[in-house]
């Protein structure tokens, strides 16, 4: 049985057994994929699983507007799974109302997204492929290394193109604020492109520093091809090396930038090396 058929069988069973009221996935409409909320098992034959299409935010919005007792199934990939975890941690969706049908990404998809974990925690079918280390990617290296001046020039060239479509924010499964700081004249000057785009992208990137699930949605949707997800790489590496924390992997663990001080840290017994950034000898 192909991966699609296995998912299809599962979705049908879920709907038939009334374990969920609807399943969010992709369906073919005039030969092309669109998101679809399947509520009738007979419609499920139109279900497809490609291409990779972020659905976590849609699922969140469905649950937010649906009646309290509505239960939803979601055909999801690794990034959707992590996004659901992060959204649940931030009270944006009720994990008990959501049944995940996890499928793994292909090696090629993982490479495209520079994804280190291209599979959900539980998969219903298919084979996992190993993820990749973002810094091994040539383009990523180009953007993340070099002297400060080189980096500045490279990013200036990229960010200067921004047309302020808000697409990166709109597709981001984690960006849920209404209103959003990026619409606030205080933080990002209104009515100009790209005048304040630096604030826009740095503030946006930092807001996601401990929540970004590396879905690559921002890069994919950017009409002017800014490699936005590369802004996250170094912060993610820092979180990983300093706190062994990766967003979306552990539903129980609170982000280290929000938690109480951990044992030993900042006390007599262990002092972080970065007490004073000048003394650090950089």
């Amino acid at each position, binding site marked *: 049985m192909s991966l699609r058929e296995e998912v299809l069988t599962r979705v049908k069973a879920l709907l038939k057994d009334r374990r969920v*009221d*609807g399943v969010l996935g992709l369906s073919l*409409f*005039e*030969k*092309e*994929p*669109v*998101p*679809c*909320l399947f*509520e009738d098992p007979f419609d499920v034959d139109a279900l497809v699983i490609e*291409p990779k*299409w972020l659905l976590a935010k*849609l699922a969140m*919005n*469905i649950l937010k*507007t*649906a009646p309290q007792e*509505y239960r939803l199934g979601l055909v999801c990939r690794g990034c959707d799974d992590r996004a659901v975890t992060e959204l649940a941690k931030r009270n944006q969706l009720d994990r008990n109302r959501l049944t995940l049908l996890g499928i793994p990404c292909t090696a090629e998809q993982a490479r495209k997204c520079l994804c280190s974990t291209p599979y959900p925690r539980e998969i219903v079918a298919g084979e996992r492929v190993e993820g990749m280390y973002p810094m091994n990617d040539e383009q990523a290296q180009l953007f993340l290394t070099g002297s400060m001046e080189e980096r500045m020039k490279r990013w200036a060239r990229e960010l*200067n*193109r921004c*047309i*302020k*479509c*808000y*697409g990166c924010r*709109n*597709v981001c499964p984690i960006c849920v604020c209404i209103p959003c700081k990026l*619409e606030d004249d205080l933080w990002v000057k*209104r*009515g100009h*492109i*790209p005048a304040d785009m630096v604030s826009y992208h740095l503030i946006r990137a930092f807001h996601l520093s401990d929540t970004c699930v590396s879905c690559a949605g921002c890069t*994919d*949707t*950017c*009409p*002017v*091809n800014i490699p936005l997800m590369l802004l996250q790489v170094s912060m993610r590496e820092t979180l990983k090396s300093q706190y062994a924390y990766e967003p979306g992997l552990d539903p129980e663990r609170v982000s280290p930038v929000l938690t109480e001080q951990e044992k030993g840290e900042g006390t007599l017994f262990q002092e972080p090396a970065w007490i004073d950034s000048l003394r650090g000898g950089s």
Partner: protein
Amino acid sequence: MNLNFIKTICPYCGTGCGIILQVKGGRAVTTLADRSHPVSRGGLCIKGWTAHEFIHHPDRLTKPLLKKNGKFKELSWDEAIGLAADRLKETVKAHGPDAVASLSSARCTNEENYLFQKLIRAGLGTNNVDHCARLCHGPTAAAMAYALGSGAMTNSIADFSGAECILIIGSNAAETHPIIMGEIYKARDNGAVLVVVDPRRTEVANNADMHLQINSGTDIPLIDAMMKLILDASLENREFIASRTDGFTEMKEYLSQRTLEELSRECGIPLEDIRKVAELYARAREASIVFCMGITQHACGTSNVYAICNLALLCGHVGKPHSGICPLRGQNNVQGACDVGALPNVYPGYQAVADEKNHAKFAQAWGRDLSRKPGLTVTEIFAAAGTTVRTLYTMGENPLLSDPNQGHLMEMIPKLDFFIAQDLFMTETARYADLVLPAACYAEKTGTFTNTERRIQLLRKAVDPPGEAKDDFSILCLLLKAFGLKGDYADPSEVMDEIAALTPIMAGVHFDRLGTHGLQWPVPSDDHPGTRYLHKDTFTRGKGLFVVPKYTPPKEMPDENYPFVLNTGRMFSHYHTGTMTRRSPFLDREVDKPFVEIHPADAARLGIVEGGGVTVTTRRGSIETFARITTRVMEGSLFAPFHFSEAPANALTIEELDPDSKMPELKVCAARLEKG
């Protein structure tokens, strides 16, 4: 849960991006980007992302309205259609068919535009049908049709990414066609050189490798200089010129009359920079020229386009992939409206009304005798409004904001006997109408839009029109019936079949073929896959024609009383007259008040501060707006977007016309700036 995702096409600019409307309980609640769309590929601009916001706006018109004693009263559709038909017929009877004039719409579908011009031509017997294409690419259509044989963008959007050199003249695509700009940036990432010619330092200019900040309206001297330099360096494509063009000798002769120094002084660009750009363009294996309103909205707009065609022909950068002449169309279906004949001089498919064969063909197909006389253009219609033009019918147009010299329009329109406006909202123009017909927006109907790369794409109905509003297709069917014409089309696809039967370039276009990626015309037969780029082995007209341009400097130059050059145009978060975008809360918050761009030196001299109130005055009118101090404009220049009814830039502009295409000179006029 009643939740659907409807794939459709963005209603704003001519790029034709794919959007997915999320519809819940009969309301469009969100817009998603369509990841599988061939043009936008999952990206959208700020307007596209908010395309759902105005649909359910409380300002939408829901009932036909008739003005009595200066006040609008509701009436039934039967009464409204009856009244409209009666008044149109009365005018024809009393003053002859040419006393009726009409504006079709670049916002409506191909099918609707086709039915509209059919109603006017066959029902009323006049060719007085035009639309706002006049105000954007009228000169383009005229010049390119004459020089190359086809008035449309020669290549595809996807072609940009493979070019080696892209020359952008008078287009701020980053704000007006952001998704196309993305493709151009892709080319730059692939190593292409991006050169921008613009009097303003626009967004595009900021991202270019070279920016030639020319004097307003001096494109012809610049291009002429480039051509001279190319010839001097023997970089012209001799084989191409010899085998595929006419008129080169005359061209050479014309060029030899001017000196480089003179040309350079005229356009304000040092010769060295012109040389650099000329060589970049000529040496590139594939090179595209992108242009927009900065070229066309001049009194010598048509010649400007000729100049561009000349440059491309000289280097042979046309008729092949990744290079070509690319006018970017401003409205979602301005291409389509032209294609299906919403122009006074041509039937659908650019078949001239003056041509006897065409006349006979359409007269037979529509079963009526038709007028042989080309109709009036937009600008001519308003010039004649209240005099020879007695009744006006507009569909989805807001000329009061989009057309030049607003004050003049406001004087003329009340002189009409009867004015029918069909629109979504009570626009500035509709307020002047006698009869207002509530229409449906893009999300409420089925049909096709044709984007700037000639791609005919299917629009799908997502929600019902509000109240009693009807889609323009239904309204037109009712009117057609009232005039005894066929009005019982089952659905728009039947109209498209009729278009295909009459229009050779769209002969193979049928709804069932458009499902996935649409079709790029020419589609001469049912099995033709569509055309990615035009003029492949031969030009549509046979050979490409060098046309000697007639340069006229801008009509109104700054003087003591009006020391500034005023330029008008668009900005990224609003669209045209703002009827849709200014009713979208998100877009309106992004920019909620009008502004005029002023150079810091000018601002300092006049004591103007950022955000402060200013008055801009020209010989035609005056607006109160707010200052934006920026070096985007040169010293002595001003730029004002025209989206704002509270400060309509077109109250200032001049209606000086391009003699060939009747395009007004919207880009240059002399203005005075005052604080407060």
